[in-house]
C-alpha cells in the first residue's frame, strides 16, 4: 500500500473521485467512438426500476434482467443496491458504466464518512450522484446512458425522499413515486393508479412488486419473477432504521398472491 500524500493546495479533501484523479486511477470517458460501433459491441442494458414513498420511508424495486439487443444476457443482475445505511440507488441503462457508477458512489459515501467523521446529508448524496451522471455525459451521447433513481431516509427532516435523474445529470426530486428504464411506462402507471399518501410498508411493497409484474408482462426487456430458478426482483425499504431488503421467500409469497389474483379474473 502506498500512502497518498498531498500538499495543502493539492489535497483532494473528502472526495474519492478527486483522489482517483490525483493518483491517476481515473478512467476517462471514451471519446472517439460512433454510436453504430457502440451498438455493435452489444453492451448489456439493465432495465426497469421503481421507487415510491410510504408513511415511514421509501420502497425501491427493480427487476433482475439485463439484455443485449434481443438476448437476455443476465438473469440475476442487482440494479437496486444499498448506497449506505440510509439510502439506496436503482439504476437503468448501460450495465457496465451503471455498475461502476454505483461502486464509485458507494465508495464516495463511505470515504467521505470516514474522512470527515460524519455522513453527507441526503440531499448532498443526491447531488454527488448527479455529478457522477454528468461525468458520464460523453458516454451517454454514444448510447451508454445511465439513469439512476436515488432514494433514502432523511434523518434531519424525518421522511423518505426520492430523486430521479436525466442523462445530463439533471436532478429532480419526486414527491410520490418514480420509475426508470424500458418498462417504466407500465411500472410507473401501475404505481400511479395504486398510489395514495401514507401507505403502509406492506402495501407499498405489494404495489412495487405488482408494478414490476405488469412491466414484465408488457416489456420484453423486463424480467418477471422466475419461480423455476427462484429469482425474484430486488425489493428494499429504507426507513429510520435503515436499509432492509426483502428476502426471496417473502417475495415468492407476494408474487403467488398476484398470480392467484390474475388467475381469478
Amino acid at each position, binding site marked *: *500500500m502506498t500512502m497518498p500524500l498531498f500538499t495543502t493546495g493539492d489535497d483532494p479533501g473528502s472526495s474519492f473521485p478527486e483522489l482517483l484523479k490525483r493518483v491517476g486511477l481515473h478512467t476517462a470517458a471514451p471519446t472517439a467512438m460512433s454510436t453504430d460501433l457502440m451498438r455493435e459491441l452489444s453492451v448489456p442494458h439493465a432495465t426497469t426500476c421503481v421507487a415510491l414513498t410510504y408513511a415511514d420511508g421509501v420502497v425501491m424495486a427493480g427487476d433482475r434482467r439485463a439484455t443485449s439487443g434481443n438476448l437476455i444476457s443476465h438473469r440475476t443482475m442487482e440494479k437496486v443496491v444499498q448506497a449506505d445505511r440510509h439510502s439506496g440507488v436503482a439504476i437503468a441503462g448501460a450495465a457496465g458504466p451503471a455498475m461502476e457508477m454505483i461502486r464509485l458512489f458507494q465508495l464516495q459515501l463511505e470515504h467521505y464518512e470516514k474522512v470527515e467523521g460524519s455522513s453527507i446529508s441526503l440531499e448532498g448524496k443526491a447531488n454527488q450522484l448527479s455529478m457522477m451522471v454528468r461525468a458520464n455525459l460523453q458516454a451517454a451521447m454514444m448510447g451508454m446512458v445511465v439513469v439512476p433513481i436515488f432514494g433514502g431516509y432523511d434523518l434531519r427532516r424525518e421522511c423518505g425522499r426520492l430523486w430521479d435523474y436525466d442523462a445530463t445529470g439533471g436532478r429532480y426530486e419526486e414527491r410520490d413515486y418514480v420509475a426508470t428504464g424500458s418498462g417504466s411506462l407500465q411500472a410507473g402507471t401501475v404505481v400511479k393508479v395504486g398510489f395514495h399518501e401514507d401507505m403502509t410498508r406492506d402495501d407499498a411493497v405489494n404495489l412495487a412488486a405488482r408494478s414490476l409484474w405488469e412491466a414484465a408482462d408488457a416489456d420484453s426487456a423486463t424480467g418477471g419473477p422466475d419461480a423455476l430458478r427462484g429469482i425474484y426482483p430486488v425489493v428494499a425499504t429504507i426507513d429510520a432504521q435503515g436499509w432492509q431488503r426483502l428476502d426471496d421467500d417473502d417475495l415468492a409469497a407476494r408474487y403467488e398472491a398476484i398470480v392467484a389474483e390474475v388467475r381469478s379474473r
Partner: protein
Amino acid sequence: MSMPFYVAPEQMMKDRADFARKGIARGRALVAVRYSDGIVIVAENPSETLRKVSEIYDRIAFAGVGKYNEFDQLRVAGVRAADLKGYQYSRDDVDARSLANSYAQMLGTIFTHEMKPMEVEILVAEVGLVADGDQMFHILYDGTVMDERDYAAIGGDAETVSTRLAETWSDGLDRSDAIALGMKALGGPDREIPLEELEVADLSRSNGRRCFHRLSAAELS
C-alpha cells in the same frame, strides 16, 4: 556562505527521538484489548469531537496519540490508501499489515529526512474472520513497528499501562469486561477516569461488513 555546525549523527538521532518522545509523553495513553469477538480500543480523551480512534476500513481501526494534526494526517492518508487499494483490487485485499508497513516507511522517512519528526505514536488494529486472525501493530515516531497479540498500550506512560494489562488480561473476555479492564489499566490503582472523558470504539466480528463501532456514552454506562 555560513557553515552549519557539525553534529554527530548519533547526537542528531538522539535529539530528535528525545524531542518526539517528549511531545508524545505530554498526551494521555490509550489501550487496545483483544476480547472474544474482536478488539476494543479505550482512550482517555476529554474532547467529544477531536477523535483519537477511528475507522480505516471494514476490519481495520486506527488510533493515535501525540500531536492531533499529525496523527490525523496519518489517519486520512490511511483511509485513502485503504479505499484506493480496495477499489483497485478487492475489499478482501486490504490488510493491516501492509498498512502498518506503509505507515512505518512514512514515519521513518520523516524522522530522518525532515526538519522535525512527527510527535505521534499510532496503533493499527485488524479483526480477523476468526479470533486467530486478530492483529495489532504499534508504530513509533521513528518508524519502528511492533506487533502485539492480546493488548497494546500507546502514549504517555505506556509502559506502566502495559504492565497493568499484562497482569489482568486473560483469554476469552467479553466486551464489557475488556472495556473495564482497559479503563482500569489507563487509570491505575488510585484514579478512576470519568465516563465523559473516555473514547471507546470496538472492532467486532459480528458487526457486519463494517466492523468498526463507536460506543456512545449510553452504551458505556
